[in-house]
């Protein structure tokens, strides 16, 4: 590849990236709106309803407000790390979208090791939290960072094991191939044969994104706001953006690996991108529902759930699955074509 061909390739790729990032940002904005509306409905109140029709312009107003606020840097903080931490948490949250297949053909980078790539990038998000907590030079922020680090390391293992189960039945690390292995109807999707792993994966995903009821890293009532207590204005908004982008990411991955991605649930309806978005929205609703319903976990209970419940559950189910694959139990486990 010559230099100019490479340059052209770069420009086309950047345009494709924008085609993913801009709708993603809009989705994040309206996910915050949806969250406030849903939680409002659950708590029998109206939620935002003043800015625009039915409060639809509320996210725009929030963004404008955050943009005009000053970004304060505490005097005793580590200035460079303090400013780079929000970017460290946002960049992996966006970069992971490169390998997500929206439909059979719509994928930015159709790489072979797509699942590993996603796992690697989601594990990087914790640096934003740790660096922010340390660089702020504040006790509360530091406590939040420490909690987050321990929690993410614990739940990443359960999450990784749950994904190993998906690899075993699909026989591929490519996210597109994983979806293609679920062809058929709603009963061919992996949520049915891998139900325990599906549950473990999704709950670990909620824990990884530091969402309620696993939001001890923020813990307003104990450590004020955790790792981002010293952040204001746009720097704070970036942390928020990363959290919501990660939520959508986890929901999209759950859809791809357990709910058949872009495949339609019944054979007589056509497959398409629409199904992917509908299922992702369905999974996202659970995040909001959890937040409105469950009280925050105590820290030692989080650790117990991760290490002593989820990891044994995944290991047991992996053994069950291995036996099922060995015995060629159809229609899910007869993947040994060679």
């Amino acid at each position, binding site marked *: 590849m010559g230099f100019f061909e490479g340059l052209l390739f770069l420009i086309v790729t950047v345009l494709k990236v924008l085609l993913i990032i801009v709708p993603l940002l809009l989705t994040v904005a309206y996910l915050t709106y949806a969250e406030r509306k849903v939680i409002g409905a659950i708590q029998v109140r109206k939620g935002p309803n003043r800015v625009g029709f039915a409060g639809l312009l509320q996210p725009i107003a929030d963004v404008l407000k955050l943009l005009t606020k000053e970004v304060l840097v505490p005097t005793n903080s580590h200035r460079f790390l303090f400013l780079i931490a929000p970017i460290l948490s946002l960049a992996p949250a966006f970069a992971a979208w490169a390998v997500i297949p929206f439909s059979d053909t719509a994928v930015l980078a159709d790489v072979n*090791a797509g699942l590993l790539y996603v796992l*690697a990038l989601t594990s990087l998000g914790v640096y934003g939290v*740790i*660096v922010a907590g340390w660089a702020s030079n504040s006790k509360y922020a530091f406590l939040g960072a420490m909690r987050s680090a321990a929690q993410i390391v614990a739940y990443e293992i359960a999450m990784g094991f749950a994904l190993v189960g998906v690899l075993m039945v699909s026989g591929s*690390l490519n996210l597109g191939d994983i979806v293609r292995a679920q062809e058929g109807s709603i009963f061919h999707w992996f949520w049915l044969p891998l139900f325990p792993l599906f549950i473990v994966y999704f709950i670990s995903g909620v824990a990884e994104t530091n969402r309620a009821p696993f939001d001890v890293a923020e813990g307003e009532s104990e450590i004020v706001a955790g790792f981002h207590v010293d952040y204001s204005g746009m720097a704070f908004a970036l942390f928020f953006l990363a959290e919501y982008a990660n939520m959508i990411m986890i929901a999209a991955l759950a859809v791809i690996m357990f709910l058949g991605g872009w495949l339609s649930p019944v054979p007589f309806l056509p497959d398409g991108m629409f199904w992917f978005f509908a299922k992702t929205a369905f999974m996202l609703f659970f995040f909001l529902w959890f937040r409105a319903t469950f009280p925050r976990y105590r820290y030692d209970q989080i650790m117990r759930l991760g290490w002593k419940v989820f990891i044994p559950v995944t290991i047991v189910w992996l053994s069950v699955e291995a036996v099922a694959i060995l015995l060629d139990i159809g229609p899910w486990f007869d993947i040994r074509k060679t």
Partner: protein
Amino acid sequence: MDLKLLVFWVFSLVLIGAAVGVITTRNPVQAALFLVLAFFNSAIIWMLMEAEFLAITLVLVYVGAVMVLFLFVVMMLDINLLPMREGYSKHLPWGAAIVVAVVVQIVLLIRVKWAGSGLEQPAPKPAEYSNTEELGLAIYTDYLFQFEVAAVILLVAIIAAITLTMRRRPDTKYQRPHEQVQVQKADRLRVVSMNSEDNQDLTGKVAKAPVDAGGDAGVAGNAGGTTNQGAQS
């Protein structure tokens, strides 16, 4: 100039810069973060060499897990760097000699390999070639025994680390979650029937409350705490 070569140079320079940063910076947290940067850049260089699996595993294992725990420890410890820096000039000649020896060895090795065996640049594999699959096949068929031995050694290391750090203190209080989950309503709640205020003698003598369960006014008494804390190991 080739775009790939440009990418290689950019990332190798950042890699070398980060590696130098690890040993020159005075702040241990900064040093750990420089090491993260170095890992990340070497992963990208592996990626350029079409070793995607190794590159991603490097990020996943070292950057995503090992360095997080490293940072965790480094941030918690109050490391005093001054005693460590004592004798810096005394050890400097030795250190420099070792570095020179290592560099000379590496250069000699690469030159001998290249010059002696006439190795060519391997041809790029086709796009559908998956080195994840090849590695898996190699590890689980040809090198299964070595792989198992490595796994057992790691297991021994885990058990050793746990036994070294586990201290049972007699005064530590533990929870027993299985007991907490199995608690019934009857263990914690006592319903006491007593007469309502209307039937009581207002002169001061309280009418004797019937103890049978037929009364309509129940008072919920919470006997004991709500959690089953204090169970000792």
